């Protein structure tokens, strides 16, 4: 028993944090939990980093600890820590009660479980665990009506997609007589041999496409980002995608290029990146803009999944980590710029070079990383994706992806342009030294991992190689 609990230390530590938050919420203490939460969350990152090499299978083979799951647990722990650090900048906000963070933590905990599940029903349960807390989180924003609207939209879309996914699950079980991924992987997944299973799997995948905000399951995304509190949006935009990608990576390892399912990945990816980028061109609200940008990035990730090779899976794994890093850096600036928790627009960035020079620089790094300009992590990730997809013969997809870079530059550059060339009379932003330091660290990570990707990539590559020997 002790052995198991040591293996599960990242999950257990997060559970401890959640329990502590629960105690804090019932005790009614006046002291803000933000005094200790960021520290505890950062400790969680260290624990997850230490347990990177843990391997094993528990609970009758339902729960597997392998390179992939440990990599994603580290990413989830890091993402959770960054979100709490971002929230720490606005510690006087009324909404930041202990239960707010308890729900955040529970959702992250569900995603950590998701990373290790290798059996369809437990996978479904973990997915729901992470979703339910989000259903409660999104409407929390003072007395804002838009937040309520966003919450309703998220629940309705979510419920519908979940129902479809469950329906698909029933087909898979009927066709394959098993729920274990390992057993399923050894059988054929071409439409000719197992039509029912392929249809069922496609439906089941919709649940994860919805989390990832892939076209055509993205309609909730801009509205929810816009309606939700800035810090909530920062969380919803990043960490749940990790959960979706880890499952998709596990599933994609079962296919080979040219199958119906991989073509589905490729086509949805192409449509998603093009649609997301084109829609983002017209946005003024920064969070809506980032919403559409995340639709486009979901499309880029599909390049690696469609390739399906070890290199492709590694690229998708690397890219999703890159994506959360640069997106969180961007949301950090969004949260810092917003006044009284309002949604900032592009015009609110005007004159940022003068009002908050450090913020402007972090924003520039994050925006150029999202474009995929070197030497940031966005470029390195994209290079891995492109070369993996090209090697597997998806030439058209690569060309669509690089042309999309050219489309996307316009709106990302728009953010930098407002920050550096716009003028405004607004007063200087007051951001604490600690917050600036934290933002600077984020930006430096985005640059450093981009310039020296070898160590992170080898983790991802090893994880992928274990899935696809």
């Amino acid at each position: 028993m002790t052995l198991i609990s040591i293996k599960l230390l990242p999950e257990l530590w997060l559970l401890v944090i959640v329990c502590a938050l629960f105690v804090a919420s019932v005790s009614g203490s006046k002291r803000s939990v933000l005094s200790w939460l960021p520290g505890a969350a950062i400790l969680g990152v260290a624990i997850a980093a230490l347990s990177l090499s843990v391997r094993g299978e528990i609970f009758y083979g339902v729960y597997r600890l392998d390179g992939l799951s440990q990599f994603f647990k580290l990413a989830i722990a890091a993402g959770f820590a960054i979100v709490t650090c971002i929230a720490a900048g606005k510690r006087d906000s009324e909404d930041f009660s202990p239960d707010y963070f308890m729900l955040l933590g529970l959702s992250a905990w569900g995603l950590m479980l998701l990373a290790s599940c290798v059996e369809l029903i437990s996978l479904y349960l973990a997915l729901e665990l992470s979703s339910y807390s989000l259903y409660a989180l999104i409407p929390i924003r003072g007395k804002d009506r838009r937040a309520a609207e966003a919450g309703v939209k998220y629940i309705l879309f979510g419920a519908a997609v979940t129902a479809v996914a469950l329906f698909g699950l029933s087909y898979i079980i009927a066709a394959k007589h098993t729920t274990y991924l390992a057993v399923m992987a050894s059988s054929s997944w071409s439409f000719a041999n197992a039509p029912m299973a392929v249809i069922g799997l496609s439906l089941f995948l919709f649940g994860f496409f919805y989390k990832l905000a892939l076209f055509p399951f993205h309609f909730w995304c801009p509205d929810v980002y816009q309606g939700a509190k800035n810090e909530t949006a920062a969380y919803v935009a990043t960490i749940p995608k990790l959960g979706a990608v880890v499952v998709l990576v596990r599933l994609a390892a079962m296919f080979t290029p040219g199958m119906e399912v991989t073509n589905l990945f490729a086509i949805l990816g192409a449509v998603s990146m093009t649609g997301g980028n084109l829609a983002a061109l017209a946005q003024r609200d920064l969070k809506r803009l980032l919403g559409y940008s995340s639709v486009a990035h979901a499309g880029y990730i599909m390049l690696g999944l469609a390739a399906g090779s070890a290199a492709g899976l590694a690229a998708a794994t690397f890219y999703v980590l890159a994506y959360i890093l640069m997106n969180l850096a961007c949301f950090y600036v969004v949260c810092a710029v917003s006044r009284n928790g309002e949604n900032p627009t592009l015009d609110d960035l005007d004159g940022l070079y003068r009002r908050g020079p450090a913020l402007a620089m972090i924003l520039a790094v994050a925006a150029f990383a999202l474009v995929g300009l070197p030497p940031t992590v966005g470029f390195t990730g994209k290079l891995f994706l492109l070369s993996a997809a090209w090697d597997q013969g998806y030439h058209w997809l690569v060309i669509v992806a690089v042309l999309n870079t050219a489309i996307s530059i316009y709106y990302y550059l728009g953010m930098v342009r407002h920050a550096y060339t716009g003028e405004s009379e607004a007063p200087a932003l007051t951001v604490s030294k600690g917050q600036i330091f934290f933002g600077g660290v984020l930006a430096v990570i985005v640059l450093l991992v981009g310039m020296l990707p070898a160590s992170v990539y080898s983790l991802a590559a090893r994880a992928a190689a274990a899935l696809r020997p």
Partner: protein
Amino acid sequence: MTMQSGFPVLTALIVLPLAAAGVLMFLRQERTIRLLTLLVGVLECLLCLRLFSYAPMGAAFQFEEKADWLPALGMTYHLGLDGLSLYMVLLTALMLPLCVLGSWTYISKRIKEFHFCLLLMTSACIGVFAALDFVLFYVFWEAMLVPMYLLIAVWGGPRRRYASIKFFLYTLAGSTLLLAAIVAFRQVGGSFSIPELMERSYSFKFQIWAFVAMALAFAIKVPMFPFHTWLPAAHVEAPAAGSVLLAAILLKMGAYGFLRFCLPLTPAAAVVAAPVMIAISIASILYGGCIALGQTDIKKLIAYSSVAHMGFVTLGIFLFSMTGISGAILQMLNHGITTGGLFMMVGLLYERSHSREIADNQGLGKHMPAFMFLLGLFSFSSLAFPGTNSFVGEVLVLIGAFKGNVWIGFAAVPGAMLAAAYMLRLLQRVTWGAPTSFKPSWWDLGMREWVTLAPLAMLVLYIGLAPSLAIKTMEPSIERVLTTMRTKNMAMGLEDRHLAQRLHLPALTVAQGQEQIKKERP
């Protein structure tokens, strides 16, 4: 890390400006910032002295440095210089201190950011010319966009937002397909290393696609005729130092790309596309010259003259002859020196008159003799007057063109006459025109301005009078490129035909090439 020589001079050249940029963030005093950047510029030039030990007859790539970067994908940190890139690196290093000096009073707001951008630019540009790994090249190639964008967007003229976005969109859109080509080369050639890729040959169909993808990126950067529209906008709005960097270094990257990648990697496609590229080059020469003739804005005039001059460069490259290519490289170097000097002088003029219109800057000959002397020198160089540097480059390209085909030569010659027409018109009006807005407070060249311009002026005369030194250094490298092309094409069944024949029979050559491929792959 493996090195040829003991001291990693290229890494030092790249890292020094980056490190200085890091230090700059913590400085407050304007004067210290300027002095530090100037010091870095001087140090860069001193470091470059080591590069003069380049041995023309030695190894293909010298000052090589190689280290693992990402072994899983075959990415390496691989730097090195040959005759094609040596002078470009020297030019880049020289421009940094001159730009700092030239902007000493021109730039008065956001000084820290300005010098930060200058340092990043220098670092990225040296990286572009020194990189021997395709991904590393691309990293520097794209990284250079951001500081250049900021230079135009923040310190530019009234329409700076429009011009800077146009610059960024145009160049980025062009280079996206280059990334696809890089990825494709890795799959086919198995490596990102440029020297390794050069040794392999590729199927004809692949070459055509790769050539188109790469040529688009490079043609936009050069810029060649239909893709040139970003250049005048960017030049007119950019601050003096920005224009200098644009003209002296950025434009060269496109031409360098053709030489480094298109010729050795896709030789068959380059031969097939040569007629089109030559036609576009001549169009650039004539079009740029004609439009320059009609400009009233001095900067716009020089910008269009750049289009014409770069047309000579691409013309020289696609002649595939020793004379043509050495002329082209010399022309690249000369254009950097001359046009850099001209833009610097327009900046000085603008500081005095606050206008770039010819009409507002007339009749200065009597009042600012030293200024007019240097402007005259650079203008004469720009129109390729014998004895100045540009003459050598342009004449070599023209000789190459006439050798290749008399008609190409004849088509390009009016470009040289147009250059004389627009430069002399500018010079005549600025020197002797009726003074319109001259004020006695406009001082002649000061000490700092002399120091800024003197090195360029000396280079104009030095290269003009003793060009053989530079040419001797390049020749072995050019010979290597041409031999690679020839042997690869012979192996593919493309005959080594005379240019004139090729121009008349492009379709036939293509058909032969394809047949050969079919034979190779049953």
